[in-house]
């Protein structure tokens, strides 16, 4: 069996396994086991991929397999990965693994919880391995739908309305996306011949420019909604605030990345002329996202809201970088996806753990947590530092690659927006330090907090997995960056040759 298909089979088997368990203990043990295997598979994939590249394989996509499953419309189940997909898969595996341990103590309907969670993960894995647009879209929906249940059933606060809002907005995105994908499909054979959903095949032909102009905004905004593009980001604060810990982790850590990944893999790669033409609009929107999200975060009181706005800012940077359409900036955008995925997952995990102890997320009701729960607090500081771009942690590598890349652009407009976007590093520092200062430092505000329990083993496992990944990327970013750069070459090449400006 193709190793990529294994990435779907393992979660599906895990779900089936959970069906046979009776209670929380069984369900979580099976989930943890399954996701550990998944992590191993993903790691194997990374090594196999690097091995192939080292052996001199220069195909754009590797591990390709192909089954027709709807012949008359030429829909295939086609899998294949390049370096970008591989690192995204690795990210997903890590975050899901950490997410399982972060939700170790979900007692209410725990079997159903784990099933939904893993179903969501299956969708994400499927999305990354697909190179058939239809299958990709199918998996995208598989990833989005369980979110409704996960928030609506296991959430907190105004969970039903948040779940509704989130799902409806994402479904709105899907609707746009579907228009875009069908637009691509029906223009995939301008010179006659069978229509196709296969990304690689479509990338070889040129979709007529008029069609691109029309369908590019649909596709880009469709993915952009998931990637928290201003002004379509408002599902994110409410959704994250209501979602249970693991769901926030997965959602901000992985699902929002589908947006960025799709935006460049589908929208920009297949419709390069339109991407060049319309990039400026989206560059303005994303630079607004970056700064606006950061400013929005300064004023919030709720830990999850702070993080959600911070995600808006960081994810805005992802799209911003991708739209710069040069190798370095896109490389940075993808590293930023991974980096943001890891650290925001860590943040949400920590917030969940802190909330589980203090039963409040209002930062003004807490204080001095460093004294009572030092391990959690130290990890929180590390996550914060990663978020504000401290060298040695992943955020720095990503941000710097983005800024350096974007600034190499010949156009003055691009350089000026880069400066505007770069100003977010200051604002980020302000809101991160504000939270850290209020939440962790100072005297202990509430006497009830004096006897809080510090991190348990499964929480530590969850946190340290992510911390190690963050620090690993931050300290030795070269292999990651090279892997991505390598795979970006054909994409950037295609984008460059269609640049009419």
């Amino acid at each position: 069996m193709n190793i990529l298909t294994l990435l779907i089979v393992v979660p599906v088997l895990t779900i089936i396994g959970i069906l046979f368990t009776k209670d929380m203990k069984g369900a979580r043990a099976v989930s943890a086991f399954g996701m550990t295997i998944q992590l191993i598979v993903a790691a194997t994939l990374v090594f196999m991929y690097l091995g192939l590249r080292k052996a001199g394989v220069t195909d754009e996509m590797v591990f390709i397999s192909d089954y027709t499953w709807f012949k008359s419309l030429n829909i295939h189940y086609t899998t294949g990965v390049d370096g970008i997909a591989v690192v995204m898969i690795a990210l997903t595996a890590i975050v899901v693994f950490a997410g399982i341990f972060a939700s170790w103590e979900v007692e209410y309907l725990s079997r159903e919880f784990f099933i939904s969670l893993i179903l969501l993960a299956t969708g994400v894995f499927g999305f990354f391995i697909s190179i058939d647009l239809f299958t990709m879209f199918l998996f995208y929906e598989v990833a989005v739908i369980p979110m409704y249940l996960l928030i609506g059933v296991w959430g907190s606060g105004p969970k039903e309305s948040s779940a509704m809002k989130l799902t409806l907005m994402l479904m709105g995105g899907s609707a746009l996306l579907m228009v875009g994908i069908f637009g691509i499909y029906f223009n995939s054979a301008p010179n006659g011949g069978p229509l196709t959903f296969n990304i690689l095949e479509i990338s070889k032909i040129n979709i007529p420019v008029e069609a691109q102009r029309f369908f590019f905004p649909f596709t880009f905004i469709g993915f952009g909604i998931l990637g928290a593009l201003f002004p379509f980001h408002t599902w994110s604060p409410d959704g994250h605030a209501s979602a249970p810990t693991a769901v926030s982790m997965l959602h901000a850590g992985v699902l929002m990345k589908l947006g960025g990944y799709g935006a460049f893999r589908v929208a920009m790669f297949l419709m390069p002329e339109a991407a060049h033409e319309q990039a400026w609009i989206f560059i303005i929107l994303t630079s607004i996202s970056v700064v606006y999200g950061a400013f929005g975060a300064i004023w919030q009181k709720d830990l999850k809201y702070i993080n959600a706005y911070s995600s808006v800012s960081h994810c805005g940077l992802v799209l911003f970088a991708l739209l710069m359409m040069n190798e370095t900036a896109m490389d940075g955008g993808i590293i930023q996806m991974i980096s943001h995925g890891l650290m925001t997952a860590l943040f949400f995990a920590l917030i969940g753990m802190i909330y589980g102890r203090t039963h409040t997320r209002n930062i003004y009701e807490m204080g001095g947590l460093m004294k009572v729960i030092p391990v959690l607090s130290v990890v929180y500081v590390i996550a914060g530092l990663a978020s504000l771009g401290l060298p040695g942690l992943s955020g720095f590598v990503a941000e710097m690659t983005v800024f350096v890349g974007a600034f190499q652009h010949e156009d003055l407009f691009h350089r000026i927006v880069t400066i505007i976007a770069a100003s977010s590093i200051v604002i980020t520092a302000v809101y991160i330090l504000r939270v850290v200062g209020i939440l962790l430092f100072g005297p202990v505000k509430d006497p009830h907090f004096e006897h809080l329990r510090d991190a348990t083993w499964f929480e530590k496992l969850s946190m340290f997995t992510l911390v190690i990944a963050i620090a690993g990327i931050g300290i030795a970013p070269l292999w990651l960056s090279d892997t991505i750069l390598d795979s970006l070459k054909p994409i950037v090449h295609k984008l460059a040759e269609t640049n009419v400006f």
Partner: protein
Amino acid sequence: MYNYTILIPLIPLVIFLVTGLLGMKWKPIISGLLGTTGLGISWVLSVMTAITYFFGSHHEGAFETIIPFEKLWLTFSETLQIKMGVLLDPISVMMLVVVTTISFMVHIYSLGYMHGEKGFQRFYAFLSLFTFSMLGLVIATNIFQMYIFWELVGVSSFLLIGFYYQKPSAVAASKKAFIVTRFADFGFLIGILILSFITKTFDFAKLTNPDGAVFANAAGMSFMGISVMTWAMVLVFMGGAGKSAMFPLHIWLPDAMEGPTPVSALIHAATMVVAGVYLVARLFVVYHFQAPDALEIIAYVGGFTSLFAAVIAITQHDIKRVLAFSTLSQLGYMMLSLGVSGYGGEEGLGYMASMFHLFTHAMFKALLFLAAGSIIHAVHSNYMYEMGGLRKYLPITHITFLIACLTIAGVPPLSGFFSKDEILVAAFNHNKILFGVEFLVAGLTAFYMFRLYFNIFWGKDRHYHHTPHESPLTMTIPLMFLAFASIFSGFLPFHSMVTSDKMHFDTHLHLAVAVPSVLIGLIGIAFAWLLYKKESKVPEKLAKQFGILYTATYNKFYIDEIYLFVTKKIIFNYISRPVAWFDRHIVDAFMVGIGTVTEKISYRIKGMQSGQLQHYAFMFVAGVLILALVLVYYI
């Protein structure tokens, strides 16, 4: 032959990791000893490097730039790459010595000073982290490596200032320090980006090549009427100004004194704050050849800061704050000196003087801080009006403190005299106004230092909670060592070691400058002696005389308040809050509004589904008619 130099930063890094991860499981003292030993090794290696570099295998002509170690860290594109490496040239070797020496002394000193503190291991871990970052900054081979470590020293400074994290003032100070320097770093980053855009390289080797080949692109590029190189270099200087606390980015430094005193000595007096000076020196060639306007700005900023800080220092009561403002003032000196310097030989006197002063200042300012720490340790107070007559109780501290005061006041033949004299000469040759300012500052410096000295060690004996006693040996040995260094480092032949073009040139004493500057120093001391030797009412009267001026100075000219206004009022209230409001009530409301409107419309139009058969029939027939009209008659 310099391969071992990579160990100099790596040892502290390893110690940081080990202490940080495992330290909590050990007895505290093990961390301390481990850190001290490690730093000792680093120090020995640095001194070895310096001796081999400057004095070994004697050579004629320029000192070479040696890169014994370099490794690719991150690729941006074919030309833009970040490498991690070790670069040895006169200034970096000199800085290696400075950093490791002070750090080593502070490590030893902290064994006594921090003894029994909660978080002793944490303290040592952070010290190691800082030392690692600072060393990495010093030996950076390219501007991006420098930026990386620049950020890391920023964060270690943040962690160390906020060491007493339960004290709100310390937390606030650490936050302030980080954010202000971060803001400055933003400028630095933009500067780097502009440089990289023009030159397509980060390497110092290429950037600082006097032929300026990499800047060929920059010719004629300008933005808003100012040449792009000036923009770039001013922005880079902004980073330096943030770290070196130049006006108006100086506000974090006095507050940073909330950290433990050894930290103040290490970071906020001797090493990190000179990073800005070091940065300008590192890129001096670029400044000189590509952006002379930026250099001019640096000179004026430096000059203004030194005067400004010296004036404020006169009125402060917290001894650490006096020292902090004194540091500001001295950093201003160094910046000014770089700003007025030319390139090559005698012209480059300012450059040499700046580096020289950096070196001597590190020694005597660290000494001052450590001595101040010793005093605070004995008295448990930071305020000089709670001190007096301490010379009896703290003899070693007293002597070393006096030596440091004399050094900073520029009394010959102590080291401060030499370095300050060179700066004054450089300023005199270049710009008479700045020279005047510096001359005045020299007098002010002597005055406020001796005000401090007399207030602490002379004057009336206060009533102390328990009799102050001299600090333990771990604390006094560093004091004595640094006093020794303060006295004798002035005789180091800097003019043949650290020069702008790395070539030897001859210097000589300019009596026309030296004599008046010594005299004004002595006058300052004399004033202080008159006013503060004995308890007297004169200072208070004087303070009253100056009235508003005094209050303004005491409140540091309200710069803090201005900043507070900008951040709290403008950013929080007028930007962030509206943004949050806008997001909730406009953007989100719009998105929610789509849903609400849909619901409203459906509520309204559900009345059409009335169950009234005849309404349906009417609609149906009317619809058919309309369709017929449209389809048949194209209306």
